[in-house]
């Protein structure tokens, strides 16, 4: 990948990702509304909301919280750029972890019971999904011979047939990262439940907008990581369709399930998610997959 091409892809990624993310969010709300027998907002409503939030008067609890909102957004954008210029997958995931830490620290920096509970639960969510994401890099690296995303592009055949077990485990992580039911324990999708909006309770106005933007980036990035399982010459469109199908399935699951407890989540993600990837790594090591 030449330098100029890398710069162009990075710029495209930074601009296009939030547009896709916002649209997905709009479709999400529309689909959810239809499932609940409502008409729902227009598809581009998230953009209106975003602009409205940006225009609100600034109200914050402390200066550290402001830095955390910026940190969350900029670090996720960095992770997106890392994908676009085909950098080290593990480093990308570390940066994503750092972004998650920023979000939690911002919530924990305010002495509010809702924000505190949300922050602590978000930590448990990190504990549940981070090992899955990090472990998923291992079978990919074993197959392609390196941890660079560029190695996946050079591999020449889709990873999904060999690594479908890992792919399944990643879907669990996707549910948690998207903060969708049944695993939206840190910030209830709909406000005014028992933890209000949990980790997001104390963010408002322009800073909530930054976090919303970061969340769009994050969702698309996760889908792009799922897309890595089908990066090939032929049938290239499957690299886009497969993640979108998974995303749509998440919406259905979100609407069917109620929120579960954190202990259930931890048992589920460690017990099933981690075990699945471990099996996959084991099989790849033995040469069975």
């Amino acid at each position: 990948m030449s330098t100029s091409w890398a710069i162009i892809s990075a710029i495209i990624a930074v601009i296009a990702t939030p547009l896709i993310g916002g649209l997905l969010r709009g479709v999400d709300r529309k689909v959810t509304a239809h499932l609940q027998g409502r008409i729902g907002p227009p598809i581009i409503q998230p953009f209106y909301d975003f602009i409205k939030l940006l225009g609100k008067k600034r109200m914050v609890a402390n200066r550290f919280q402001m830095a955390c909102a910026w940190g969350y957004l900029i670090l996720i954008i960095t992770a997106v750029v890392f994908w676009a210029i085909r950098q080290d997958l593990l480093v990308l995931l570390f940066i994503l972890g750092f972004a998650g830490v920023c979000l939690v620290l911002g919530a924990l920096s305010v002495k509010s019971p809702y924000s505190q509970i949300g922050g602590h639960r978000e930590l448990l969510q990190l504990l549940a999904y981070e090992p899955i994401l990090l472990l998923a890099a291992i079978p990919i690296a074993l197959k392609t011979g390196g941890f660079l995303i560029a190695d996946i592009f050079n591999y020449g055949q889709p990873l999904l047939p060999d690594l479908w077990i890992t792919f399944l485990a990643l879907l669990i992580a996707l549910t948690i990262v998207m903060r969708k039911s049944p695993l939206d324990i840190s910030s209830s999708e709909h406000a005014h439940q028992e933890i209000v909006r949990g980790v997001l309770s104390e963010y408002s106005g322009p800073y909530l907008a930054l976090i919303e933007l970061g969340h769009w980036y994050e969702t698309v990035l996760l889908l792009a990581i799922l897309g890595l399982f089908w990066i090939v010459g032929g049938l290239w469109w499957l690299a886009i369709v497969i993640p979108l199908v998974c995303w749509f399935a998440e919406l259905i699951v979100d609407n069917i399930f109620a929120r579960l407890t954190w202990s259930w989540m931890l048992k589920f993600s460690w017990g099933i998610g981690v075990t699945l990837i471990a099996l996959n790594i084991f099989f790849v090591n033995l040469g069975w997959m």
Partner: protein
Amino acid sequence: MEYSPSPAWDWLILIFNYAILAYFLFVAIRNLTQRGISLHNILTIVLTLAAGIPLAIFEFSWAPHTPLEVAPVLYIDHLSIIMCLIISIIGSLICVYAIRYMKDHEEHLHLEKTNQPRFFFYMLIFLGAMNGLVFSNNLLWLAFFWEMTTLCCYALIRHDETQIAITNSFRALWMCLVGSIGFSLAIIFFWNSPLHTISLIDIINSGAIAYPVLLLPLALLCLAGFTKAAQTPFQGWLLGAMVAPTPVSALLHSSTMVKAGVYLVLRIAPAFQGTHLSTLVTIFGAFVFLITAILAISQTEGKRVLAYSTIGNLGLIILCAGINTPLAIACGIMLIIFHAISKGLLFLCAGAVESHIWSRDIEDMEGLTRGLPILTGITIAGIISMLVAPFGVLITKWGAIEAAPAIGVWSTLVLVMLMLGSGATTIFWVKWMGRLLCHSPVPERARAEPMIPLYHGILLILIAAAIIGSIFIAPIYNGVVAPALTEAGYAAAFTTGFWFLKSPVGIFAAWPLFVVAALALVIPLLRAELKPEESRAAYLCGENVEIGADEFITMSDERTELKTGGFYMEAALGEKNLDRFFIPIGVAFLIVIFVVVIMV
């Protein structure tokens, strides 16, 4: 560089070595007569004899000469130089800090007569012994310095002479003596092997592949390293060492004692490359990393969190030694450097905070950013330097993960433990930072506390070292780590174009990420101005009293104090619940190592 002093020095070392062992016997017997029989003093007596008698029989009757001379006595390569720099620079900074700390400490205890001369005597002897340890090539010399660090550790833990301090000092003593037995037996086995040598460098150059008989003594040396590095099941002594004044903890955890353990394992790693022992050491390191991370979540005492984190990171270094590829060894060495800086810093922070609030409990540190903004800021920066990319500690973890698949099928188990441990690590660090940061919104900025040069100055030097060292990780690798790898017989681990660390399987670009981190966090933090009217009270369902007050109005219209707290999950993850599984597993693991080494 090699150097052999005149043989008279060998006599001196021999005499002092038995003098130390005799002193251990003396203190144990004195304790026995004064306080009656206890597990600790009996174990100390038995283990001192078990370590000393075989060594004495060997040195005075089996060995062809007494004392046994080996050339060179001292051998200095880049690994020794790295260790020497860590010990001498960070160790000295801690001693300077201790000048002020001990003054506060003794004032707080209302002592009539100062004990500081004894304290600093042992602190400085400790640094000297560590330097001797990393330069020694003659295993008898190494064993002597090894005992000397045990002695200093014992004396410093005991320093305050409280009941608990004495008990814990004996625990440290007997646990380290288990390692000494390993050391004594290893020396005898090495001499009885076809190599017929106790020169460390000869043993490493021969290797266990060519001489399988070396495997058992190498495993014994690993055992010695595990005890010093407080690996499960020996973690009890390091946790107990918390009773000592904080500079002692800082010294034990960053630049001395535990680092001697991992230094030894890393030093002899080339000798067991490609053997079962190497794989077992890897799994053992990963196991310790995982369980200490989980145990740290339930700790409410700051220093115990730091202690578990230390043991976990030492496990990670041991894991690197076990993976035994150039990438892993390079990361192991770099982790020794960065861990020493960050952990030394964090202990000194904990000590400085303690001298202000007289508590070690994390819950008592709630909202400390208001009261002690500079000190707390440095603490948070220190935790960040342990926790996230692109800091040095995380870079080495990245390297360890990318190196791990090289060990084959067993890497599945190792990586699962490593990743789960990483997740748990995030929890206990962030939770602690969260408590430090948690306070009710107040319109005005926090007022900086008065600067104490010997506290704040030292802390600022260390945090600067952690940041600058991480930015310049590529030159550090080129300057000291790469030569150390070559001397140990490994290929190069990284190429460093643009100062990126580029291994055959991945790239870590540290300094660009620092630019991003500065943009993302530091600039908003420094630039952000908050007008008083933009500041809002926390959301309390509309029942707030007034902004800045830690109170809310309850249903009975009374003002009630607002309380928050951290998650510790004591019932599920507490030591009481988990140690009954982890300690036996650790013991079983060590037994498995020896069974495999002897049988296979």
